[in-house]
């Protein structure tokens, strides 16, 4: 069992949990993910590692409540334990050899963009962060980003916090103002990563995106997480999860990501219904 050591609600739909998992903590690097279950007979869910503490033997995950499993996870408290927590899986972010980078985070993706920004910062790179949310209530980790960034833009769709607009607007402005990045790292919704990659392609700036497709095992066994990258089929779990954003077929990834939407919707409604009954 893997006990929950701390829990922080970051915004109405995003929760941060610190899980005790010494083997995972010992090896974890930014960019990698874990595979967990929240109950026996539960689904296996991949979550990218948001932080880790090798001394304490803990790994932090940050997730958005989007379905039945995340809903159940969000209802767990400090002292509860996950039955399964395996990792670290996938390849770590390559941070070496870059002098100036732009980190673009969208929504819950900011949670996993942060450790990447932090690592670049610690290695002495100039870090520009652009983080985007729908509205002010959903903003989280802005201070953390600020602390590891040489420049930070906070964007919201409705302008209720930071600047009004999309992360791509901010990125374009920075590039147009003469900022010269060795690499752009974009982590967020598929549609955001697609448009970041489209923009940077015009400017010829190498761009890395972190993919989060449907997965079962996370070790290369099922092939459910396959993507087309540069015309070749890749498995996000072992070949990624980070890929060259200019080569990823985002439209296919979006289509594959929606494969079980009706099932997921139904399962989510069921879970919510059960919690509502408990409240009554």
């Amino acid at each position, binding site marked *: 069992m893997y006990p929950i050591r701390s829990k922080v609600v970051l915004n109405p739909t995003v929760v941060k949990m610190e899980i005790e998992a010494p*083997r*995972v903590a*010992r*090896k974890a690097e930014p960019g990698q993910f874990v595979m967990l*279950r929240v109950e026996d*007979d*539960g*689904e*296996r869910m991949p979550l990218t590692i948001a932080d880790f503490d090798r001394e304490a033997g803990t790994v932090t995950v940050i997730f958005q409540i989007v379905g*039945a*499993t995340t809903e159940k996870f969000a209802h767990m408290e400090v002292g509860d334990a996950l*039955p*399964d*927590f*395996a*990792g*670290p*899986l996938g390849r770590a972010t390559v941070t070496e050899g870059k002098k100036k980078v732009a980190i673009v985070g969208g929504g819950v993706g900011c949670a996993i963009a942060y450790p990447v920004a932090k690592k670049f910062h610690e290695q002495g790179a100039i870090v520009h962060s652009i983080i985007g949310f729908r509205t002010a209530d959903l903003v989280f980790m802005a201070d953390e980003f600020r602390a590891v960034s040489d420049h930070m833009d906070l964007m919201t769709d409705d302008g209720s916090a930071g600047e009004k607009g999309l992360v791509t607007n901010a990125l374009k402005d920075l590039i147009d103002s003469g900022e010269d990045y060795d690499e752009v790292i974009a982590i967020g919704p598929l549609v955001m990563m697609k448009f970041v990659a489209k923009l940077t392609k015009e400017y010829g700036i190498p761009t890395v995106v972190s993919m989060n497709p449907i997965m*079962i*095992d996370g*070790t*290369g*066994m*099922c*092939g*459910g997480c*396959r*993507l*087309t990258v540069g015309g070749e*089929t890749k498995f996000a779990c*072992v070949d990624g999860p980070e890929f060259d954003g200019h080569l990823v077929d985002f439209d*296919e990834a979006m*289509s*594959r990501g*929606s*494969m*079980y939407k009706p*099932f*997921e919707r139904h*399962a989510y409604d069921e879970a919510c219904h059960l919690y509502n009954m408990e409240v009554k």
Partner: protein
Amino acid sequence: MANMSQVKNEMPVQDPKVRITNFSEVALGYTPEQAIDEATRCLNCKRRPCVGGCPVAIDIPGFIQKIVDGEFEEAYQIISQSSALPAVCGRVCPQESQCERVCVRGARGEAVAIGRLERFVADWHRVHVTEAPKPVPSNGHKVAVVGSGPSGLTCAGDLARKGYEVTVFEALHIAGGVLVYGIPEFRLPKAIVQSEINNLKAMGVKFETNTVIGKSVSIDELMEEEGFESVYIGSGAGLPRFMKIPGENLNGVYSANEFLTRVNLMKAYKENSNTPIQHGNRVAVVGGGNVAMDAARCARRLGADVMIIYRRTEKELPARAEEAHHAKEEGIEFYMLASPVEILGNEQGWVSGVRVQQMELSEPDESGRAKPVPIEGDIRTIAVDSVIMSIGTSPNPLIASTTEGLATQKWGGIIANDETGLTSHPMVYAGGDAVTGAATVILAMGAGKAAATDIDHQIMGTAD
């Protein structure tokens, strides 16, 4: 007086019409009377060719004679001297190409039903002898086993019996490997796998699930930091192959591994399962092996009309005859001499059909095998809403790529000594599908057994 019937006692099975509506076991097993009657067909001949046909050299005539005498537990004890998983092997071993192939009764009529008898004995033991095996006093030596499939379990069992402190590392959340994620419930009930694993636990074998060797911890770390004197790698051949044809990433295209894992490991066949699966109306399974049969029969049970598409003819199907026979009984269509060239999709990104190239067989080549060759211009379109690719798997590169000095074949298999399983890395052994590529449960078990013997010799310093 031997029973001179030329045919085996038939295996009682669930009616095909009924069984396609459930996931319960198809073959129901012999009654004691049937088992004794079948056992008396064994001539207890001096030559004992069956023992040589068994990859783990079970004393087959020995256990069969115990059945004749009605001493079922004694029969079990004889089998368990050689096999850690009799209930599993009695069900999934290809006996027709091993022990039964060389049975002298096969010269005139059918061989003795060795597999069915093995299964009977193992099942009898499980039901009647509930006492768990006792732990063997430790000899103070630690060995790690990577992977909890048939190969790893066999190696772990043999070493534990000799007093080794064995830890089995498993990447998934439950132990059993292909026995739990791959082979379906209706062919190998998971309760049986669990009971074999519980026996190993009772003997003192430790299981660490959720531990991905090569990621969570490396082989070198196990040996240098965690005190394991030897490591056996039985990590299987888990990486699914695809055909690299257009449309393979459409929604509704599964690897057999994914489809079977969703159904078996994640219990997607149960109504209240937390794991989704597409319930296709018309499913094409591409491939002709046992895994293809398993996938087809699972899809059938989920309510689909299913066809198996294979590029050669039924005669060349790599699947066991029994599996193909069961599949046919269940109404699965066999579309032979065809090979997919494209998977078609609709506007929503879901599978709508498959285009297949019709094939014919060439004259047999020097190896005696006829090659499928395309019939120019004969390409047909079949309407399906799901495709399951079952064209084989490769060894997972996770371990080889993270272990220095572990030599592999070009195609990914770990290079290991044929007799001992020793790899190019000192005190690291490997066997099963990780070495051979996808093969059978019993061959994997044989390799686990051989490695256990050599590990013991090396650690005890008794190697000659």
